[in-house]
């Protein structure tokens, strides 16, 4: 399954070509990034574009800046590599015993400022990369855990559309959650 450039065993030309086939992704600010097609296909959006034959080897991504795109590519590369190496762990009777070998790497990856994090969420959503979307959303969620409603409003620029009485009522109903 995992491809290796030193593998010589069965020379299947088509297979080899696929392994080293590249695509170019173009960010909103005009920067081009050349990546392995297999890495780019971590994004379901890009995968569909390629499969539909609309690639022309350069895919414009008007919703993603170069700064964000380079990070996304880094994520996809790392996760593609890891997928090639690891084996699914033997599960006994529980459904939850598959471990993520990249947990530490992922944790470091999301140590970025809030704006970058939000941009990564939007990019992961637009590019349809489930793992990255879950990772970034969970990171934001973890950040939110200890906050008050007012702090949440500030973080997400939310207008408080409750009347003071309504807000007091809702708060009172769930008073225990504030302790």
């Amino acid at each position, binding site marked *: 399954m995992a491809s290796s450039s030193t593998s010589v065993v069965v020379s299947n030309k088509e297979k080899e070509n696929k392994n080293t086939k590249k695509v170019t992704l173009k960010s909103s600010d005009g920067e081009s990034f050349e990546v392995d097609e297999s890495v780019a296909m971590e994004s379901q959006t890009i995968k569909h574009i390629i499969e539909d034959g609309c690639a022309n080897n350069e895919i414009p991504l008007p919703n993603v800046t170069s700064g964000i795109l380079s990070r996304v590519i880094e994520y996809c590369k790392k996760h593609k590599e890891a997928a090639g190496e690891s084996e699914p762990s033997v599960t006994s009777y529980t459904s*939850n015993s598959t471990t993520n070998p990249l947990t530490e790497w992922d944790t470091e990856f999301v140590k970025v400022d809030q704006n970058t994090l939000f941009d990564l969420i939007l990019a992961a959503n637009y590019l349809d990369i489930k793992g990255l979307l879950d990772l970034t959303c969970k990171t934001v969620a973890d950040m939110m855990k200890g906050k008050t409603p007012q702090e949440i409003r500030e973080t997400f620029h939310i207008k408080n559309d409750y009347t003071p009485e309504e807000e007091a009522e809702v708060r009172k109903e769930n008073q*225990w959650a504030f302790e």
Partner: protein
Amino acid sequence: MSNSHIPPELITNILSHLPVKSLARFLSVSRQWYDLISDSGFVKKHLNRSVETNRDRTIILLEHDGSHCGNGFSFNFDDDEDQFCNAVKMYPPLQHCDILDCCDGLVCLLKGREEVVIWNPLLRKYRKLPSEKPKGVTDFWFPQFAFCHDHQNDDYKVLRLLFHYNDLPIEIKVYSLKSQRWKKVEEQWPNKEICHWESVSLNGAVHWLVADYGVLDKESLLAFDLASEKFKLYTTPVSPDLNQETRLEVLGGHLCFLVNVFEEYNDVWFMKEYGVDSSWTRIYKIERDAVTWDFERFEYYKPLMFSKNGKKVLLEEHWNNNAILVDHVVEKIHSKNLIWYDIEKKQGKRVQNWSFPDAFRTATCIGSLLLLDGDNVIDPWQRNASQSEGLNLLLKAVDELENEMLEG
């Protein structure tokens, strides 16, 4: 550098990663967020994520005085399984009740013959079922209840079997949390006798160990499907000998068959593929020397759940305290210890925690927003505070009246 605006569908993705307590707090953020969080689609998504990741995994221990449950604690073990930490005081919405069953973060409580409550302990909400008094029977009737998730209709249901004396159930009714009503079941109970009152719920069906009348060592498994409202019979892996007791449990999402030989061993089987009789597999056997057995009171080890890596099982010590109640034997069961049993090493380790009550009953929960529209569970101190507030107002009014009378 932008102050990116996150659209609502991504907000719900983020929110689905949050524990129940945070979400209860964020209901106050805005009306829009209130609607997002209480939306039934979101509640389902959040629950699915809880189940996948075992989030907000909590064990509730309610202290048991030999006949009923009182208050207790909840213990979280998301972080460290060996430690039962974050003891939070728990006040069930019903006092002097018993825990019937639990599912998807909901716990079903039972009091006496008629009071049934569905409770979400992590969210502190509950719903009391409407009373459904049986008609056409004498005073001498008793019910058996079961609590189950109907997968097909995504509904949580309470089943009631009505017994008149010790015969076959004469009536079967089902309460649906969605419709909030009781409904009669047309299907008749098959000609089988129940071996144990305690049923287990799994895969949208309620299960009992049953046998032909007078032939108690030829057991089978009776299942009642809540969607189709039909009965079905399955086989059990082994037939018990005279000195063996059998029990049904649920473990890791599978039906579990337990053979208990008093003071000797607990042999535990799994139905690996639900509904497939040939898929019964022995998964572990607790032998005499694995744990200290308390022969005075010990009955069997009830399996509660697997550890995250699936190598250990959390067991609850069970002893049987028979009580005679109006001509039939009602099994009252309460527990004393929790034990982590290592399946490979065949060794058990008692959980030491000073917060644990001496005797208790357990329920296991995961993070769920079900019953967000239910009634609030009021902590006793809050209840007392509002009662004394009422009393103060009354005294004040009496005072004023007295003064008026004196002046007049």
